């Protein structure tokens, strides 16, 4: 296959004369890279003083809202804030090295390409990808999942032999779950509509876990794709990836993991998990918006047809046809979002320096405290597991007699920024007969005092609406 003979941009960067010239500030020392590669780093618990130092890295946390109230930002599940090193990395790239990557032979183009590819290498190491070419930069996780779904759809109409394994049609099945974010649901609904395949789904139990009792019926010989979230953005539930991957592998189905709510919050090693694809967004992990990642197993990416086509993703172009570059270039048509990728590289460095085990431990302690404090309020019902086992830091709830939107308004007036609504998981809310929930979601920079502010503001909302 000609694809396999092509030297990828990544390989070129490694092999080329500039390989040793990657700017010093944009790569980690070897020792830290090793720590990053195990996806975890230090497990020492973070002290309140550590958290104070971390908070000082996030300038926005200093500001006030709604007539001088201190900002209590509990909406990192929607988007996280950015630390100074991420802002500086973007600024340094833009002010000193900006050029179109993978084009031109001038010095700026070389430097820009090195910055971009260095970010790819560090992100690949951070998630345990075996090879940087398994990391594709996208606009966001939504685009990452659409990339896979559209590539499968394109394979369905492809005459390339390599693409045949992705073909879908009537009689084939795609399995999702009832707790998916719309981003990991609608692309599969649409793929089914286009190909005639059938959509099936895991239900959610009354205790907010995937109902796996019929797993062998649901994932069967007709199943071609199993797409599921690592951690629910509403419930906080962490799903048993290994069980789902094993069931999919048994029948030869491909797995697509929505890792948006896991990669920013816990050690994630995609190779160890054994998933075929994983998607996450930069802006939920202290990085910029406008950049996301699709991880894909290299042999699958190498066999997949492209999604978006145009410049940069080609091997050879004739007036009536073209051949395509090897991954990742095949899936990065056009000039990419370079400063954002550089910023995401810096975000990964930041998380690696803190250590993902320490991040996870801090957030688990916040989640435990929030669950305990909120549970003490008898007029409130938590929509998600009651304990911290297999559970992350998205805590959603309903308040008896007060609509989520109204709770959110009172919280906002107290400076507490949370999310209200269905959080792009409408079928999950419908499953529990709820139109909308209030969701607090935590990140590394949050403190127990902020949870106290949340709890107090919820009680205020109950008093205000006369139900407390």
């Amino acid at each position: 296959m000609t694809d396999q003979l092509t030297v990828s941009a990544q390989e070129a960067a490694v092999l080329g004369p500039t390989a040793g010239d990657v700017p010093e500030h944009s790569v980690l020392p070897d020792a830290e890279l090793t720590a990053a590669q195990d996806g975890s780093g230090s497990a020492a618990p973070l002290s309140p003083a550590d958290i104070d130092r971390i908070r000082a890295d996030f300038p926005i946390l200093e500001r006030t809202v709604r007539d001088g109230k201190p900002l209590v930002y509990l909406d990192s599940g929607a988007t996280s804030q950015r630390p100074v090193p991420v802002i500086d990395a973007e600024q340094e790239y833009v002010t000193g090295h900006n050029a179109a990557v993978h084009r031109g032979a001038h010095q700026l183009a070389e430097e820009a390409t090195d910055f971009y590819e260095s970010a790819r290498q560090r992100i690949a190491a951070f998630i345990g990808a075996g090879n940087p070419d398994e990391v594709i930069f996208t606009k966001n996780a939504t685009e990452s999942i659409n990339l896979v779904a559209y590539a499968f759809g394109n394979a369905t109409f492809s005459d390339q032999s390599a693409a045949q394994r992705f073909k879908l049609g009537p009689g084939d099945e795609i399995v999702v779950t009832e707790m998916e974010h719309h981003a990991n649901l609608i692309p599969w609904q649409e793929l089914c509509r286009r190909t005639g395949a059938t959509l099936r789904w895991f239900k959610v139990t009354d205790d907010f876990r995937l109902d796996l009792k019929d797993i062998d019926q649901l994932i069967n010989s007709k199943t071609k794709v199993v797409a599921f979230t690592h951690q629910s953005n509403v419930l906080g539930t962490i799903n048993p990836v290994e069980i789902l991957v094993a069931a999919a592998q048994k029948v030869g189905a491909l797995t697509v993991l929505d890792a948006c709510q896991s990669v920013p919050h816990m050690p994630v090693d995609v190779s160890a998990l054994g998933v075929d694809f994983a998607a996450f967004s930069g802006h939920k992990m202290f990085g910029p918006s406008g950049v996301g990642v699709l991880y894909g197993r290299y042999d699958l990416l190498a066999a997949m047809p492209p999604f978006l086509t145009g410049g940069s993703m080609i091997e050879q172009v004739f007036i009536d046809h073209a051949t395509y570059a090897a991954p990742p270039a095949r899936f990065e048509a056009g000039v990419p979002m370079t400063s954002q990728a550089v910023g995401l590289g810096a975000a990964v460095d930041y998380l690696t320096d803190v250590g993902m085990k320490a991040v996870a431990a801090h957030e688990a302690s916040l989640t435990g405290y929030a669950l305990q404090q909120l549970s003490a309020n008898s007029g409130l019902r938590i929509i998600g597991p009651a304990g911290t086992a297999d559970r992350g830091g998205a805590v959603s709830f309903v308040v008896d007699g007060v609509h989520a939107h109204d709770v959110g308004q009172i919280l906002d007036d107290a400076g507490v920024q949370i999310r209200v609504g269905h959080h792009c998981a409408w079928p999950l809310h419908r499953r529990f007969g709820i139109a909308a929930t209030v969701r607090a979601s935590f990140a590394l920079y949050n403190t127990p005092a902020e949870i106290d502010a949340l709890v107090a503001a919820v009680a205020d909302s109950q008093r205000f609406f006369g139900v407390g």
Partner: protein
Amino acid sequence: MQMEKLYQEIILDHYRTPHHFGLRDPFDTEVHHVNPTCGDEVTLRVRLEPTGTGDNDPIVTDISYEAMGCSISQASTSVLTDLAIGRPLSEVLDTLGAFTTMVTSRGTIEGDEDVLGDGIAFAGVSKYPARVKCALLGWMAFKDAAVQSVDSSSAATSDAQSPSA
């Protein structure tokens, strides 16, 4: 707290005790509107009746509805029914225009109580752009239903007058 300005007593009263709630017959048109950002929804029926004066401006004789949503959306729909039922459609649409202008003004237009009646209580909503859709949910459903009612009645009239009918 700024919240008393947003959630005025009139709003809380209508929220706790919505007026004209429930779905009733007869009606011309039923619509179902949702707010996709929060999942709030309203099913709303409109009944228009001609005045008999031939001026083509029917009277809104009933608005009935079932709704699920926040205090702002529930109360604004309830206030709408008070303002609209029994009045000529053209006047109700004028009120609707004034209400829409006020709540979308980002706090720059106070609103005229003579035109808006209890609707004036929603002036505070205009300072919270995320809540504007809540305040307009029932009103936009009404507008949609009224337009459909007028369209179907004029279609029926023109059918009746058409020589081929």
